[in-house]
């Protein structure tokens, strides 16, 4: 089989390669810089060498990262918080979306409009009221061998998780996807005596893989990159997530100075989980974006 190599096709590929390089260059710069001494990073920055691990390549910056902060603890914290938010969020948001997209009740559309409206409110505007709220809420704690009720959620994983489980965007995404599934599936199941939860669990969920994948990726990304909220509510190093860890390397007005090499090494380390998750889910992600008409 022969493929005709038209000018248009060549241009199309050239453009694709150009944009691929454009988006890959920052990553290449970050990874290659993480393998160089800080002096070499700045020496190479004005040439092509900035994007390649050339010269005295070593892992000193990575060693420096592990010496400067409790890397494993920070990664564990972020994985735990992101993981719980994603898993709980998929369940809660898809259930809410199921109700909006598949059931019939008064105020259905108003509810959806209200949820979409929450998307335009920046988190920064509600951060302080939310802080005061969570600081006055009770929680269960384990003390001296018994479960007790304590007031205030600060310095817990809970405070990093609970406010972010339900999300307007995620619900909207599920609603859009669920609406594409034929209503006849529900009707047939109801005739067979299925409950609404059975319809959700046995019919809708198995058919909505791409929506779940997209929601999982976007939620994970948002929580993994959370910075302001952890700065406000986490007052102990043991519970700090990875993004706040970046602050450990900034010290321009100290004898040591800002550790650019270590910043690149740390950035590489904390970018890897995101890249891995995206690579795993990318087919489903693209399929969902294409079918739901939602762009992340």
């Amino acid at each position, binding site marked *: 089989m022969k493929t005709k190599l038209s000018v248009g096709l060549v241009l199309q590929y050239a453009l694709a390669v150009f944009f691929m390089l454009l988006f890959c260059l920052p990553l290449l710069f970050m990874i290659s810089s993480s393998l160089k001494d800080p002096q070499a990073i700045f020496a190479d*920055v004005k040439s092509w060498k900035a994007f390649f691990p050339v010269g005295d390549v070593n892992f000193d910056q990575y060693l420096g990262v592990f010496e400067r902060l409790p890397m494993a603890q920070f990664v564990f914290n972020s994985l735990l918080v992101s993981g719980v938010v994603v898993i709980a969020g998929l369940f809660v948001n898809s259930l809410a979306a199921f109700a909006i997209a598949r059931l019939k009740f008064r105020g259905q559309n108003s509810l959806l409009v209200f949820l979409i409206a929450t998307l335009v409110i920046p988190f920064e505007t509600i951060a302080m009221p939310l802080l005061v709220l969570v600081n006055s809420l009770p*929680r*269960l704690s384990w003390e001296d061998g018994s479960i007790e009720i304590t007031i*205030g*959620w*600060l310095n817990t994983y809970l405070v990093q998780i609970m406010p972010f489980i339900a999300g307007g965007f995620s619900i909207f995404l599920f609603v859009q996807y669920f609406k594409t599934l034929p209503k006849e599936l529900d009707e047939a199941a109801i005739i067979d005596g299925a409950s609404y939860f059975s319809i959700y669990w046995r019919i809708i969920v198995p058919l909505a893989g791409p929506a779940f994948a997209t929601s999982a990726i976007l939620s994970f990304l948002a929580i993994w990159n959370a910075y302001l909220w952890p700065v406000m509510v986490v007052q102990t190093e043991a*519970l700090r997530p990875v993004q706040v860890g970046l602050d450990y390397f900034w010290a321009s007005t100290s004898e040591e100075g800002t550790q650019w090499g270590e910043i690149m090494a740390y950035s590489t380390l904390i970018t890897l989980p995101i890249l891995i998750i995206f690579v795993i889910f990318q087919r489903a992600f693209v399929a969902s974006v294409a079918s739901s008409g939602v762009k992340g």
Partner: protein
Amino acid sequence: MIKLTRALLAASAASAIVLSGCAATDSASNSEEGAATGETTTISMWSHAAGNDQEIATVKEAITDFNASQTQYEVVLEEFPQESYNDSIAAAAASNTLPCVVDVDGPIMPNWAWAGYLQPLTIDSALEQSLLPGAKGYYNDQLYSAGAWDAALGMLARKSTLEAVGARIPTVAEPWTQAEFDALLAAIDATGDYDYAIDWGNGWTGEWFPYAYSPIMQSFGGDLIDRSSFETADGVINSDASVAFGEWFGSTFAKGYANAAQTGDRTEFIAGTIALQYNGNWAVKDAYEALGDDLLILPPPNFGQGPKIGAASWQFGISSTCESPEGASAFIEFILQDKYIVAFANRIGLIPATATAAEQVPNYAPGGPFAVFVEFSNSYGVLRPPTPAYLSVSTIYEKAVADIINGANAKQALDAAADEIDANLADNDFYR
């Protein structure tokens, strides 16, 4: 389905306990701050030095020694990275979870005192007297903070460079005049041996801008705000003298003497591609090790009102919610002993806060290679305006200077800064 529901409920309950309860002991350091546990009262302390091994090591040493020296109080440390420390403090104040002892950047202290985060600090008067002016923080004539060190700025140069262009080597008694400095920059530029004549450090951002550049403006005769009332910046930050500073400073970039796109690593001076560097004493060790006797640490030029440098660095204070201020004061007095001041100075390279400590630090003892910074600090140090408005003033000034560096008209940039500062003052009822 019932099994599934039960399993979900059980998992949810277990998760709730695990996720909310596993940090209970950590949070206790704040929530139980000041509460007596048996005979010992816990004093929680926050430090901004997470990630800065050398600084935090001394803090930890002092805490260990203090806790071992008596049984009445136990100081418990929590470390925060400097970049987000102020935000963490603001959030803690909003949620009423401030620790007992905090460290606070000198120019920020008045804002925290005004906002009610801090209570006045009572320490031994002899200790208070012995500290450098830049190591003490006063607001409304009351001491609120005291620190173990101060920082100072100076001009770094190579002796060989100055000799090559026939420039006079300035002294504390006779610093360069503006004319001499201008001639020096032009002469260095004319040699063609350097990419740029001077590195102003404009690759650094944030507090560096007001810390480093407002003293130059003060040397011209300008200032950030009217210090008699702290209720207006108009006619001060945009005064003729301030505008003269802006025009002159901008011209060093416009003429190509300095790089407007300077990076933050500041390695060019040691590498020999930039001839002069305006920097702090914390950064001089590398240059000294690289250049040895060829390194000159020089006073900033006199632009009319004498050389000026910024004063005040990180200090210790007591939060307004601290229930054991006497214990907190005892700890602050403890960590301000010469032993720890010397340790701080040796480890992080800053100026010891007392003369007796300075004598024990080889670099800052009389005749030491960096001793001249102590002279700069004593002779030229100017506190940044001790007003709660400083947080806003510094940000607005940073933007104005950044605009000037990038070619904006100095008069317009500083007029805009004056308007913005005055609007901020009015919005906050002049921080009364």
